[in-house]
Structures are given as C-alpha cells and as structure tokens.
C-alpha cells in the first residue's frame, strides 16, 4: 500500500439505466459515426480528403457514451482523432464532412481540416494536433467554467500516447491543485501511432497517473456504450459538484491504422479480427437492443436512416464550394468588438 491517502473510488452512476427507447438513439449515433467515417475513408482514397485523416472506427461507444452523460453546456477539448467525438457532441455530419473536404461549409470553414474541428454552438472547442498539449487547454477551459460559475464541466480528451507527454502531467497537477471541473478522458486504444502501449509505458493503466497528484481515477471498459455512459456520468457529476477533477481511462480499440496512410502492420496476427468479433461496440449494443426487445424492422429502419445521413454528408461536402481566397487573412487576428 502506498503511504499517502488514496483518493476514494469513483461513486456509483447517478444516471438511471436505459431502456430500449433510450438506447436506440445511442446505437444510431454510433452507426452514424461508423458510416460517416467509412465515407471519409472512401473520400480519402478518392483524394477528396487530403493531408492527415485519423479515423474513429471501433471507438464509437466512447464518445457516444460520454455525450449521453453530458449536458449541452459541457465543453469538449480533444486531440486529432476527433471526428466521432465531434459528431457525438452535436457537430452535424454535413459540417464535419465538409471540413474534411476543406470546404467553406465546414465546421471551421475549411481552415481547420480533419484535426481541427470546432463548433462553438455545441461547445466543441476543438481538435488539436500537438499530442497532449490540449490537456492544458481543457484545464484552462475548466478554470473559466469554475470562476464564471457556469456549472459546466470540461471533458478533456487524449490518447494513451499523450499520457506520456509533460503537458498532460502538468495539467493534472494544476487541475487537482485548483480543484477544477475537468474530466480527463484517456482513450487507450492500445497504440500510440505504431507503438503499443506496453512498449510506450511501464504502467499501462494511464488513469493510475492521476494518483501521483491525488486525483480520483478509474479504468473502464469502453466497448459497451451503457457502461461508458454510467462511469462517465459518475466522473462528470463529481467534477460538476465542485469536488475536483477526475481521470478516466477508457479501454478501447481502433480498427483502422493511426492515419489513413498507416497499414497497421504492428498489430499482433489475428488481433484485429478477434477484436472486431469480440469488441465491436456497434455489435455489442445491437445484441443488447435485441435483448431489450428491439425488432428487426426497428433496427433496419435505423440502418437505413444512417445510410441516408452518411451519403448526404458526403454529397453535401462534395458539392460545397471551397473557401473564398478573399477570406485568407480574415481570421489571423480578431477584430476589436464594437
């Protein structure tokens, strides 16, 4: 036993269990993310999406479960594997896809691209491209949420790779010292780029890093959207109550490479196939819905809707105009407010 007082375990979920009607929309959101991301992959091979493109396929339950535990006014700050998080937080698939296409109808008018999705209307405060740096931004967002007495919480997302960065550790120190309403969400998808978590860190449960600053922590299973919703709900409401930050490590798995150009040859043989069979979040929730009495017709109707949304996002992005060159310098400096 360590000779310092360990923070108590995270309390039980404050949220009621979901019935079929409650769970169906979460499944629909997960499928929407899955299909929009598959469309993005197609568009990338068509060279309609350029640069870097990091897909969220396999991790949908994490963002959707967290969103289901949030209030609309809660803020999200995250890294660059953020398409799924953006859509879960409420960024419309059209604006998301148009941003990937670099179009003026995109969430950031084509200025941000895949790694920098922003939508102030749903408090999605950005994807960031420097691994771990966003942890400090999220901590600062929480500073303002606390001192402006908003009652909102900031979810600060990062991956297992970022958990080795200094910015992450400094952020935890500050958040705990100042008791800020921030939940650090570490999505451990087992690989930091091409390096497995065992090869990156002697301690592979990143939530344990929180103990070094006295922070409440938990490692959770991320494949079941209901479990994510419950445990994130516990963390978010603890932070909202002003008791301080929480770090949650969500164990998950990405089905694609680090980015579109990565064939992911570093995986163990058979690993991906096994994970797809045992741990695909859309399948797990589909099985649960069937247990809860969802009919074939209900599920098929959702699949059809999702197909329409994903196709529509692609076509909207494809048909949208590029940014206006006249706007090149428009956002370098903010003008004075009048």
């Amino acid at each position: 036993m360590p000779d310092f007082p360990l923070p108590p375990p995270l309390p039980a979920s404050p949220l009621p269990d979901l019935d079929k009607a409650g769970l169906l929309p979460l499944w629909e959101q997960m499928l929407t993310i899955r299909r929009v991301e598959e469309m993005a992959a197609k568009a990338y091979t068509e060279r309609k999406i350029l640069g870097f493109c990091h897909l969220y396929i396999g991790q949908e339950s994490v963002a959707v479960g967290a969103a289901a535990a949030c209030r609309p006014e809660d803020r999200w700050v995250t890294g660059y594997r953020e398409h799924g998080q953006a859509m879960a937080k409420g960024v419309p698939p059209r604006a998301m896809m148009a941003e990937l296409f670099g179009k003026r109808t995109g969430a950031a008018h084509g200025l941000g691209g895949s790694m920098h999705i922003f939508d102030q209307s749903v408090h999605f405060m950005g994807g960031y491209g420097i691994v771990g740096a966003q942890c400090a931004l999220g901590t600062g967002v929480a500073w303002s949420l606390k001192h402006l007495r908003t009652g909102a919480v900031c979810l600060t997302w990062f991956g297992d790779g970022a958990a080795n960065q200094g910015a992450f550790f400094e952020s935890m120190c500050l958040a705990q010292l100042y008791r800020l309403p921030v939940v650090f969400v570490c999505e451990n998808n087992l690989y930091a780029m091409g390096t497995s978590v065992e090869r990156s860190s002697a301690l592979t449960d990143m939530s344990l890093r929180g103990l070094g600053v006295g922070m409440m922590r938990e490692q959770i299973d991320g494949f079941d959207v209901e479990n994510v919703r419950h445990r994130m709900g516990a963390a978010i409401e603890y932070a909202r109550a002003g008791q301080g930050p929480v770090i949650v490590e969500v164990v998950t798995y990405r089905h694609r490479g680090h980015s579109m150009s990565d064939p992911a040859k570093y995986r163990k043989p058979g690993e991906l196939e096994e994970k797809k069979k045992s741990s695909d979040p859309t399948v797990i929730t589909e099985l649960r819905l069937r247990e809860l009495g969802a009919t074939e017709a209900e599920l098929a109707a959702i699949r059809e809707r999702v197909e329409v949304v994903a196709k529509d996002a692609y076509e909207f992005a494809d048909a949208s105009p590029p940014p206006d060159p006249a706007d090149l310098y428009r956002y370098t400096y903010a003008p004075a407010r009048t």
Partner: protein
Amino acid sequence: MPVITMREALRQAMQEEMRRDPTVFLMGEEVANSDGAYKVSQGMLDEFGPDRVVDTPIAENGFAGLGVGAAMAGMRPIIEFMTFNFSLVAYDQVINGAAKVYQMSAGQYRCPIVFRGPNGHAENLAAQHSTSADSLYAHFPGLKVVSPSTPYDATGLLKTAIRDDNPVIFFESELMYAHKGEVPDAEYLIPFGQAELKRDGTDVTLITWGKPVHTCLAAAAQLEAEGISAQVLDLRTLRPLDHDAIFNAVAKTHRAVVVQEGHLFAGVGAEISARIMESAFDLLDAPVLRVTNRDVPQPYATNLEKLVVIDSARVAAAARTVMGRS
C-alpha cells in the same frame, strides 16, 4: 504628474484593468504571496484575492496552456513568465495554441491573453537566463508583440494589451523595473502599431525598441557632441509594426541603424533592415547597419558579457559609419 517606477507603472495598468473587468486575472510563479519575483504585482493579492492573483507551481507549459484555454472560455488571463527564458518551455502553448486557435476555429474562439515578463539579458545571468525572445515571437502571425521602454509607455501599452482580443507578448526588462518616469493618474491607453520618436534629429535614425532605447539615447548624446544629429525611433510594438514611421524617419535622415538585443542572425533587426531596403532604397545615402548582441550564447564573466551586449559606443560607431565618418 506623478513619477513612478516601471514596475509600479505595470502594476497600475493591471490594477486598473482588473478593477474595470472582473474576468481579468493574473497567474504565474510567485505572483501572489511573494508579490512577484520582481515585485511587479506587490499588494495585488490583498486587493483582488487568491482567485484573481494566482500562484502556480513551476509548470510553464501547464499554466500557459491553462491561460489559453481560460481565454477561449471567456476570461482574460495575464500570464506572468518569471522570465521569457522559461517561456520556451511553454512555447508550444503560445505558438501552436494561442497564436493559431482563432484561425483554426474560423473565428469561433478568441484568445484574449497577455504573456508578460522580463526579456533579454540582465547582469551575469549566463547563457540560460539571458535570452532575448523578440524574434522567436515576432515571427508568428496571430501574436501581437509589445516592448515598452518607459513607465508611461508600459502603462498605456499594457492596458491596451489586456483589452485586446488577441494573444499579446509583452516584453519587460529586469534592468528597467526601477526606471522612473512620469505616469499620469488619469487613465490613458496607447494604441498598438504607433512608434514614437523619443529624440528628434536630422542626420541618422536609430531604430530600436525596449531597453536599447536608452542605449540609443546615450549614443545620440555622444554623437551630438561630435556634430551628428541622431534621432531615436522607439517602435514600441513589433507586431503590428509601424512601417510608416520607419519609412518617414528614413525619408528624413536618409541613414539608419537598427539596434536590437538578441542575436544578429534572423533577428527582428534583419526584418526592419529588409523592409527599409524594399520600400526606401532610393532614399538611402548609406546601407542600413544593425547593432545587436554578439552571435554567441551569453557568457557569465563580466568582461565577456560586456563584449556581447550592445552598448552606446557600438551604436555610436555604427552611426559614424553610416555617416561616412568612421
């Protein structure tokens, strides 16, 4: 008009703005309980309380990034770096975060933040505590860069910086905190992008900013005794740069020397020199010269340090050269 020190002038600006706007707060190492490493924030903890004058751990990357996030979410942080040497630990948060988020978000998130603290060499602080970071920050669009040379300018410019909706780098100097000057009690602001002629002259323009303004004024006094009339143009802000003032000064004297702290190579002085060449080549009677610190890391020993840093003798020598009197 009251005469106060530079540190008091800076404090006056922060106090006035914090009284005016409850979203402004000061954060940094030892700014609260210890009144700041150079006593700039003396007494501010008592007036504003620990939620608005905030001590941090030694974690520049963390608290600079915290400031950026807080600025995006509705507050107006003043982040004090104990010195700008330590800002290099937080460089990523300033450059990749503060400077870029307004554009990355297509104008959805503003970043009204001031990063301030002493910059450049002081005395015998050796290599790692003597950095002039001017060119490191002036390089990047998205930042504004300010470097006052007098208490009057410090108050007026810092108040403007705190009210600006963009990230502002605000350079001070350990060697200037005790400088005294007139600062009115009545509120005033100095707009960015307006250089000021700190001394008028007709033969040569010494273009500079920050602490070397005083070196240039001393050089101008020496030159006057030799019959050379030197004027000193204090840029006050590097971004935005008062290009018109530079052009007009060169049009008047036809000779110019750019004087900057920090290294020669790729310094801000090179930028100004190039702009004069591009826009006023036909007005020049001599090539523009630069006087900078020597191109070596700062040595500790006093005799070597004196060789490295600019002094009025070197400035005067450069002025004689452009006058053809060397």
